[in-house]
């Protein structure tokens, strides 16, 4: 028997007044996946995450976590879902350990969870801050407490809503390593981000949402190959006037030192381009291949729906 999907989203619609925030979003995330949810600001990523967490009630459609409907079986669904919100929200009345303890309590967990809280504090490098008030923590530490709160009830599915927004490079790397470890430990990870580098680094499969619609859903490799353009740039020391007529329409940039010619490899093969250059007797000083990255694919896919 195949295991149920970690997350299933079926034809979900949500309107806020005249804004159609989600327009029939429909996809599933399998257990154990590292899934990226990408989209420009206002695309509907957070609305979708919030619908999964029960903070937004969709107008129609169905969302399930580990097979449990988030509306009719909300207790079971929420026990299996950990959410790290985008904003650094915390209760200023409490200390770090208290924050984690109460969060575990809301899930009905008693003393048995204390060793896990100790382990979490250790894993999140918060042991020496466990007695500190949340107000006194740095932004990075608060972010780690939020991750701890999402993990305190040991959910199989963890959703991180832009966890590295506004954090410095070092902390971003630390958070990536932590999230990778969670994935290795068997958690299904759903990561929303608008740092495409982050999705490229971490995710196996990526969905791109734009204006409330799913515009792409594929593995990272297939997404990068989709409509990808490769361009061969050739730098020559020949002045423009000495270039044969066959190459003049390939001139991209001219300086005092070189002339840059660019060839689309979607139209010409590499061999054909090199033969053309050799036959023209052009002196080549440098060659560079430019390939679309996820950012280009993202821009291309989201441009048309805006």
């Amino acid at each position: 028997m195949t295991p149920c999907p970690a997350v299933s989203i079926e034809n979900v619609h949500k309107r806020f007044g005249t804004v159609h925030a989600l327009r029939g979003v429909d996809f599933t995330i399998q257990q154990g996946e590292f899934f990226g949810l990408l989209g420009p600001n206002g695309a509907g990523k957070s609305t979708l995450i919030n619908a999964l967490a029960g903070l937004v009630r969709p107008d129609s459609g169905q969302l399930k976590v580990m097979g449990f409907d988030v509306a009719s079986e909300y207790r079971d669904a929420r026990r299996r879902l950990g959410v790290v919100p985008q904003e650094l929200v915390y209760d200023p009345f409490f200390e770090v350990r208290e924050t984690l303890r109460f969060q575990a309590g809301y899930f009905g967990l008693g003393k048995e969870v204390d060793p896990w809280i100790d382990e979490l504090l250790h894993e999140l490098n918060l042991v020496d801050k466990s007695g500190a008030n949340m107000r006194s923590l740095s932004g990075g530490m608060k972010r780690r407490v939020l991750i701890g709160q999402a993990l305190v009830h040991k959910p199989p599915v963890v959703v991180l809503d832009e966890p590295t927004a506004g954090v410095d490079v070092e902390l971003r790397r630390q958070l990536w390593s932590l999230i990778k470890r969670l994935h290795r430990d068997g958690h299904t990870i759903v990561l929303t981000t608008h740092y495409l580098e982050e999705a490229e680094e971490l995710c196996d499969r990526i969905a791109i949402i734009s204006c409330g619609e799913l515009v792409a859903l594929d593995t990272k490799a297939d997404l990068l190959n989709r409509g990808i353009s490769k361009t061969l740039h050739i730098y020559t020391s020949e002045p423009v006037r000495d270039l044969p007529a066959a190459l003049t329409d390939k001139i991209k940039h001219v300086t005092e030192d070189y002339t840059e010619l660019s060839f689309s490899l979607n139209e010409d093969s590499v061999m054909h381009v090199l033969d053309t250059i050799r036959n023209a007797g052009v002196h080549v000083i440098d060659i560079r291949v430019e390939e679309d990255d996820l950012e280009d694919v993202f821009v291309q896919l989201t441009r048309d729906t805006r």
Partner: protein
Amino acid sequence: MTGLLWLFWKELVRFGKVAFQTVLAPIITALLYLLVFSHVLEGRVNVYEDVGYTAFLVPGLIMMSVIQNGFANSSSSLVQSKITGNLVFVLITPISYIEFFAAYVAASIVRALTVGSGILLVAKLLVDVPIHSFFLIAAFAFLGSAVLGALGIIAAIWAEKYDQLAAFQNFVIMPLSFLSGVFYSIHSLPEFWQALSRFNPFFYMIDGFRYGFFGVSDVPVVISLSVCLITLVALSAVTLSVLRAGYKLRI
């Protein structure tokens, strides 16, 4: 413990951490009222036969504090969590809307009764206040604090900013509690104001509560008890339906 009990416990710890502000300050304020009003009016005003004005004042001040602190606890905690955004950590848990309601109202009751008991204990050292029925005193204190705890939830859900909550407190709770017979019997009011007072549920809370001390009241205690019960049931139904609908919490 269940999620409900943890949420209730969290609310208790929250107000316990600022006990100077949430418990001690209202006790001192009520005692200052008692000292000033009793000094000025003792011997000049006689509301009930054989009951001195200072003794008359004690139950009213206690109930006024119960009302104000019952409201303040649920409303301030909830509005702060809502505005700062940390309420999501409660909303994403398996806690149901009924458990959510029960936890916030129960915490309001505990804070209101703690403040009320504190005032009573200190007042007993200063004034001879009889106790006619401990059961009625406890019943009215419980009902009053529960009603205000529920009202605090509604106000906090409605308020988008702290000043909207302050407006609710200053323009609804304060006038209704001051104009409910804390400092006087409604029989001393002109007829129009007497009639108007009868539409104020806080009046029945205070009048019934006072009956628990002296065995005398402006209206029969059964009516006061019924009004308080009906108010609690009605307000709880409204609060529960607001929470069930997710108004302003689950969009």
